[in-house]
C-alpha cells in the first residue's frame, strides 16, 4: 500500500515528478574505478610516471566525472554539493599526507640508528664523517632543560590561571587574558633573543642549559595558562559554594577542592606544554652553547639538546651526520609523541563525570 502511495505521489500534480532524480548509490564507486582505470590507461600509453602524479590525476578525473554526471542527472545545485563534499574530504586527506610521510620517513631513516650504542654515547671525539657516536648528551640536555622549564613554568602558570578564573574580574584580568593569548604567538627566536640580551649581554653570564630553559619558560607558560584556565572553568560552582558554606577560606577551597577536581585536565595541559617546548630549536641555538660532550650541569658550561643536535648534524654535508640527525629526530619525536599520548590517556582515564 505504502509503495502505491509513494508512486502516486511521484506522479501526481499533473504527471510532474515531485522527487528529483538522483544518481544511484553505486555511481560514486563506479566512477572512482572508472577514473582510476582511465588514468592507468593514459599512463600506460603516454610517457607519464610517478605514483604521486597518478593519484593526483585520478582524483582530478574522478571529480570531473562525478560533477559532470551529477550535473547531467541531478542538476546544478547537487553537482555543486557533490563537488564541495569531495573537496572537503580531499582537504582532510591532503592533511594526512605530510603527517604520514613525516612519521614514515623518520621511522624508516631513524629506526636503523636507534640502538644501545646510539642512546648511551655522546659525540665526543667522534669525527664528522665517522659513523658511531650517539645522542646521550642531547637527551640529558633535553630532559634537564625540560625539567627546569617545568619547575619554573608550572607554578607560575597555575597561579596566573587561578587568578584569572577565581579572582580576576577587573581590568588587570582582561589585560592578562589578552596578553596570554598574544604571548602564545611570540616567535621562539624572539624569546631567545630576549633572554640572550638579559642573561648574556647585560648580566654577563655564559651560555648554558639554564638560560635556554628560561627562554622555553616564556614559551610554555602561556600555553599552560590557557589550558589550565579552561579546566578550572569546568569545575562546578556548587563545589566551591559547598566548601564556602562549611566555612573553608577561599584559598583553601581553591587548593583543596578546585585544583584537585580539575587536576587531570591540568596535567594534560602541562604535558602538552612540555611536549611543545621540548622540540623548540631556535632559542637553544642562541643560548645553549652546544657541545659534543656530556654535561649534567645546566648552570655552567655549554650543554646540548636533541633539537640542536638534529640541526647541527643535519647542516653537515656527510651522510653519516645526516643519518645521526634522523636517529635523533626519531628519538625526539618518540619523546614528544609519548608525552602527547600520555596526556590524552591521563585525560581519558581520570575524566570527572
Amino acid at each position, binding site marked *: 500500500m505504502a509503495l502505491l502511495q509513494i508512486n502516486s505521489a511521484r506522479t501526481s500534480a499533473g504527471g510532474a515528478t515531485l522527487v528529483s532524480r538522483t544518481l544511484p548509490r553505486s555511481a560514486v564507486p563506479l566512477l572512482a574505478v572508472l577514473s582510476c582505470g582511465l588514468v592507468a590507461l593514459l599512463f600506460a600509453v603516454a610517457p607519464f610516471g610517478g605514483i604521486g602524479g597518478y593519484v593526483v590525476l585520478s582524483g582530478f578525473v574522478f571529480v570531473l566525472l562525478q560533477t559532470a554526471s551529477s550535473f547531467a542527472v541531478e542538476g546544478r545545485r547537487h553537482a*555543486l554539493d557533490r563537488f*564541495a*563534499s569531495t573537496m*572537503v574530504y*580531499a*582537504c*582532510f586527506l591532503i*592533511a594526512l599526507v*605530510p*603527517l604520514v*610521510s*613525516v612519521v614514515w*620517513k*623518520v621511522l624508516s631513516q631513524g629506526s636503523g640508528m636507534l640502538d644501545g650504542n646510539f642512546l648511551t654515547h655522546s659525540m665526543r671525539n667522534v669525527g664528522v664523517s665517522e659513523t658511531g657516536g650517539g645522542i646521550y648528551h642531547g637527551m640529558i640536555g633535553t630532559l634537564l632543560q625540560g625539567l627546569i622549564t617545568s619547575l619554573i613554568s608550572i*607554578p*607560575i602558570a597555575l*597561579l596566573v590561571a587561578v*587568578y*584569572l*578564573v577565581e*579572582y580576576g574580574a577587573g581590568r*588587570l*584580568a582582561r589585560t*592578562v587574558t589578552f*596578553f596570554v*593569548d598574544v604571548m602564545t*604567538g*611570540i*616567535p*621562539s*627566536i*624572539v624569546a631567545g*633573543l630576549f633572554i640572550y*640580551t638579559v642573561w648574556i*649581554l647585560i648580566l654577563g653570564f655564559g651560555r648554558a642549559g639554564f638560560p635556554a630553559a628560561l627562554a622555553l619558560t616564556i614559551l610554555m607558560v*602561556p600555553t599552560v595558562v590557557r589550558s589550565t584556565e579552561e579546566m*578550572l*572553568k569546568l569545575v562546578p*560552582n556548587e563545589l566551591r*559554594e559547598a566548601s564556602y558554606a562549611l566555612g573553608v*577560606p*577561599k*584559598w*583553601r577551597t*581553591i*587548593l583543596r577542592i578546585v585544583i584537585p577536581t580539575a587536576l587531570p585536565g591540568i596535567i594534560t595541559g602541562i604535558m602538552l606544554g612540555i611536549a611543545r617546548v621540548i*622540540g*623548540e*630549536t*631556535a632559542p637553544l*641555538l*642562541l643560548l645553549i652553547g652546544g657541545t659534543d660532550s656530556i654535561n649534567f650541569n645546566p648552570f655552567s658550561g655549554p650543554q646540548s639538546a636533541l633539537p640542536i643536535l638534529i640541526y647541527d648534524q*643535519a*647542516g653537515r654535508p656527510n651522510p653519516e651526520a645526516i643519518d645521526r*640527525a*634522523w636517529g635523533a*629526530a626519531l628519538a*625526539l*619525536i618518540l619523546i614528544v*609523541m609519548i608525552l602527547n599520548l600520555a596526556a590524552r590517556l591521563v585525560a581519558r582515564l581520570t575524566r570527572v563525570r
Partner: protein
Amino acid sequence: MTQMTEFRSPHGGPPADSQITGKAVRAGDRIFRSLTAGSSILLLVVIAGIAVFLFSRTVPALREDSVNFFTERTWFPDSSPSVFGIAALAWGTLLSSVLALLLALPIGVGIALFIAHYAPRRLATGLGYLVDLLAAVPSVVFGLWGRDFLVPQMVGISRFLGENFGWIPFFATPDSQTYTQTMLNAGVVLAVMILPIISAVCREVFLQVPQGHIEAAMALGATRWETMRMAVLPFGRSGMISAAMLGLGRALGETVAVALILATSYDISLHILEPGGNTFAANIALQYGFAQSTGIDALIASGMVLFVITLLVNMAARWVIARRAAFSGAN
C-alpha cells in the same frame, strides 16, 4: 549571562569575596590572592621586558648603521662602516608567510568543515586529534623532512610551473634550475606547519554554529554545501579571519625549518622558484654564529622588528575573536 553578573564574575567563576564573607578577608586569602595577582603581573612585566630589552640594543645598533635600516638590503653589520638593513628580510618573511597562508588557509578551512560537519560524529574527535598531531612534530624535524624528502618531491611540480607558467612573474626562472632551496619550498613546509592551528581555530568556531541555523537551512531544502555556505561559513567568518592571522603569526616567526630549506640571499625577488631569499628568523639563526658585537646588536634590532610585527598580527587576531564573542548574536 548578563543577568547573572550580580552574583558571578563575567568568567562564570565563583562569587566574589565580598559577597560571601563581607569585609573580613582572612590573612591566608590575602596572601594567596597577592601571589596569584603577582604572577599575573609578572607575565605582563615579561612582555614589557621583551620590548624594553630588545629596544635597548636596537638603539645602539641603529646608531652604528651607516645606511637606512629599513631600506637597505644587505647585511654586513661587522664591517666598517657598518652596513645592514631589513628590506630583504622583511620581503622574504612576508613572501614565505603569505605563500604558506594561501596554501594552508583553504585546506585548513576544509579540514575544519570536514571534522565539524562532514565526518561521522563518532570518528570526528579522533580524526581531529590526528590533525593536531601535526602540531606536535618539532619544527627542526619538519625542516629536515622538508629538505631531504619534500623538496625532491616538489621538483617536478616546480619544473612544471616554471616551464609552463614562466610568463607569470612569480614563476619566472632562468634556464638551468635545480628548483631546490626556493621560497616555494619554504612556503609549502610553513603551510604544513601552520595547518594545525588554522584548522583547530576554524573547527572550534564551526562547532559553535547554532544547531537552529543549520536545521533552518536544511528545512528550506538546502543541500549540505548550501547549508555550509549560508549558515556555517558566515557564522565562522571572524573565526576564519583570526585563524588566518594566527597562522600568519606562526609562519612569520618560524626559524629552523626555513633556515634548513632556503638558500639564503639578500635579494628582493618575486621569483618563488629561484633559490634565495631570507627571513628575519632564519637570518638570526644563520648569522648569529659569525656575529661580533655590532652584528649581535643588529640581529637583535631585526628581532625587535619581528617581535613588533608578530605582536601586531596576534593582537589583531585576538581582537577579532574577542569582538565576535561580544557581538556574536548567536542563539
